[in-house]
């Protein structure tokens, strides 16, 4: 579903980018408790008023802020996350039977997304054995040790954030902003990256590119954080 060419431009408006998200889609959103989230895209997604989405994100932020609004505005049908404690709307909607929630250990979440992006059939992890996380999942024994088989995760669209992004989509991340953005950039049919700083091609040394531009389909310009 990549629309990008080498000779064309990947840079689009926020509205155009978000128009690619349709009701019922599965959407990944990078970031960790507000750090490294694509704030402009999340806001535009809220404004777009889409419903019935499945969201994959490591957390649901804190009440009233960023991703939290997608829950609060009842845009989600299903949620995969590792931590939802600071957003009371999740528990409320779960208890009311309005939202399906799959809590995923944070490392397993990262690895399931990576597997989805790397063409692997699943993840064999010791994490979650003997806990509710293991319910209904196959256990595979390798050389006498037992591992949970966790399935890959992919999305229709991934919304990621980068501190510096060049016009080919190469991304460099400041501080802890990379978190889930790197794996999510590999695991969706369409990857939209929000650039804090949009720069010319060549501005990022090839050794310091963290997410290669080939993974990014569309680029939007976001606000500066500081």
């Amino acid at each position, binding site marked *: 579903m990549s629309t990008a060419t080498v000779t064309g431009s990947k840079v689009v408006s926020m509205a155009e980018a978000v128009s690619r998200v349709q009701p019922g889609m599965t959407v990944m959103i990078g970031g960790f408790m507000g750090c490294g989230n694509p704030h402009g895209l999340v806001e535009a997604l809220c404004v777009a008023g889409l419903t019935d989405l499945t969201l994959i994100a490591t957390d649901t932020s804190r009440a009233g802020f960023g991703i939290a609004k997608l829950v609060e505005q009842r845009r989600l049908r299903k949620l995969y*996350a590792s931590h939802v404690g600071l957003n009371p709307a999740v528990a409320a909607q779960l208890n009311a039977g309005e939202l399906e929630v799959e809590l995923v250990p944070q490392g397993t979440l990262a690895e399931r997304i990576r597997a989805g992006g790397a063409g692997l059939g699943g993840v064999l992890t010791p994490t979650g054995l*003997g806990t509710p996380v293991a319910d209904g999942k196959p256990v595979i024994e390798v050389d006498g040790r037992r591992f949970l088989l966790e399935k890959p995760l992919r999305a229709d669209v991934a919304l990621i954030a980068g501190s510096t992004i060049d016009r080919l989509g190469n991304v460099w991340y400041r501080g802890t902003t990379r978190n889930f953005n790197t794996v999510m950039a590999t695991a969706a049919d369409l990857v939209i990256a929000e650039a804090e700083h949009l720069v010319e091609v060549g501005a990022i040394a090839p050794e310091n590119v963290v997410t290669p531009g080939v993974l990014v389909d569309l680029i939007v310009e976001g606000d500066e954080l500081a």
Partner: protein
Amino acid sequence: MTAPTSAVSHASLDRAQVREIIARRVARELKDGDFVNLGIGLPTEVPQYLPDGVQVVLESENGIVYAGSCTTEHISPYVVDAGGQPASCLVGGAFIDSATSFGLIRGGHMDATVLGALQVDAAGNLASWIIPGKLMPGMGGAMDLVVGAKRVVVAMEHTQKGSPKILAACTLPLTAVACVDLIVTEMAVIRVTPSGLLLTEINPAFTVDEVRSATGAELAVAELVVPML
């Protein structure tokens, strides 16, 4: 056994004292050069009590190797810790992504993790992430940490409103099976052994019987019980 240095009773320990007793004792579990992940809350107080000459490398599972604290003037929107709070990366550190971070955690690269608990039991089972119907924060990175770290230290108050948190068998959903190596509370230091729980150190403010009555599991007592302070 050394005589108690102070005759505080349990009731007389305020919250800050309890936390300091626990954090101070946990600090002695860490060796120079250890690569360590500290859970949110009490465990983050451990580094201030590290002995002279002992420096550890802290990990923040959201992506910092050699994490540091944050002073008001250095607050940055780009660096947060695993609790989402402002943090820093010390000189010589590295920022890593979540897959790499949990590769380090799950892969046995972490010398120790210190974290709180709702319940721990005689088999070293840990419950720390959910109280069904009441509290559902999610497990975050805890399940990976306790499975992957070479040494799992639970740092917690001995009881919750007077009820034991150390039990014969956890009643809450588990974080992981048989993962806990050591329990440090304000009352005692308890090792998880293949044959159950073993009291090895005690806060001189308490008697062994007091510790036992605050513990919901069989508690063997080491031949030599030393003061934990």
